[in-house]
């Protein structure tokens, strides 16, 4: 293995990320190359130095702030919910529509009350029987021949006046 090829493997060697055969190959090169050996040792030192940096903890308010921002996120709606939200009438329009509906129902019921109750066939027959005599008199008189030949009726009011004057 050349020093150039070592560039892509030396860090993985230091971190122990190579498989058995790769590790043996790198080790063989390091045994023969003092420059790469020094580099590997110093890379290992650098790696240890990086471990010295302390880990910081997020501030106590961090979670609260994240949760508050999540809570403030708009809720994603389904297709139907979105359609309803778009088409949903305003409270004023809903109130007006309700009032109109109530008025329509009220008027419709009142109209039904005013319609006369249906007459049964028996009742209709009995009413006709009661009016039968009147109808018969009307037929008799209207078809009575002598009456048709009579002169037109005299003004009875004028005759009464004459009698009174006499």
């Amino acid at each position, binding site marked *: 293995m050349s020093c150039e090829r070592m560039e892509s493997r030396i860090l993985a060697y230091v*971190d122990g990320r190579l498989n058995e055969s790769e590790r043996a190959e790198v080790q063989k090169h390091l045994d023969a190359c003092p420059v790469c050996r020094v580099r590997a040792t110093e890379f290992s030192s650098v790696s240890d130095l990086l471990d010295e940096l*302390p880990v910081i903890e997020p501030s106590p308010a961090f*979670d609260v*702030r994240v949760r508050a*921002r999540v809570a403030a996120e708009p809720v994603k709606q389904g297709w139907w919910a979105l359609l309803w939200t778009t088409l949903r009438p305003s409270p004023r329009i809903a109130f007006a529509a309700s009032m109109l509906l109530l008025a329509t129902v009220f008027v419709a019921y009142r109209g039904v009350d005013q319609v006369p109750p249906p007459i049964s066939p028996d009742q209709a027959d009995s009413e006709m029987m009661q009016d039968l005599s009147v109808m018969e008199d009307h037929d008799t008189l209207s078809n009575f021949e002598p009456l048709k030949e009579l002169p037109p009726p005299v003004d009875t009011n004028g005759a009464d006046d004459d009698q009174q004057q006499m």
Partner: protein
Amino acid sequence: MLDVKAGDEQSFGLLLQRYRTPLVNFLYRMVRSREQAEDLAQEVFIRVYRAREEYVPSAKFTTWLFRIATNLALNSLRDHRHQKLEISMDAPVTTDAEDGDEKPFEVADKHPTIEQELVEEDRKKMIRHAIEKLPEKQRAAVLLHKYQELDYAEIAKILSVSESALKSLLFRAYESLRVELAPLVTRHGAK
């Protein structure tokens, strides 16, 4: 993540709990500002939440998560480059303010003297500065490789490079760190 996708809010809480610390640390080491790192980490979680319904488990969740985080960090660095330069120019010579954020989290296991503490502080500052001096993509590669322990294939996907290009990036980064940290490397080797 599939539970989050199915609308399970509790699973999102678990994701938050599991990934907030690695994410904030990665972003902090990328942008060098705790406040900015937390803002970016929040943004990562919000983007994950927003994209939950479109999530397809074709790649590992961590790859997806750190890809979002890396892109946000790189964009933020580009946006704040001029601003950062101005801050550096105005910063006091003793850069305590820059490193002050981490002090409460550095727990001393022994009882070092003030002098030892200063030496340790200088050492950590040097390491931080060495990482900070790396070009952005090399820095992201080192942080993902070293601290998130992601494999080469995952890091390559996150950075949108080939695996061989990633190995080359990492090699150059470690070469730079080796030079930059030479005094510590020598002393470290002598320990």
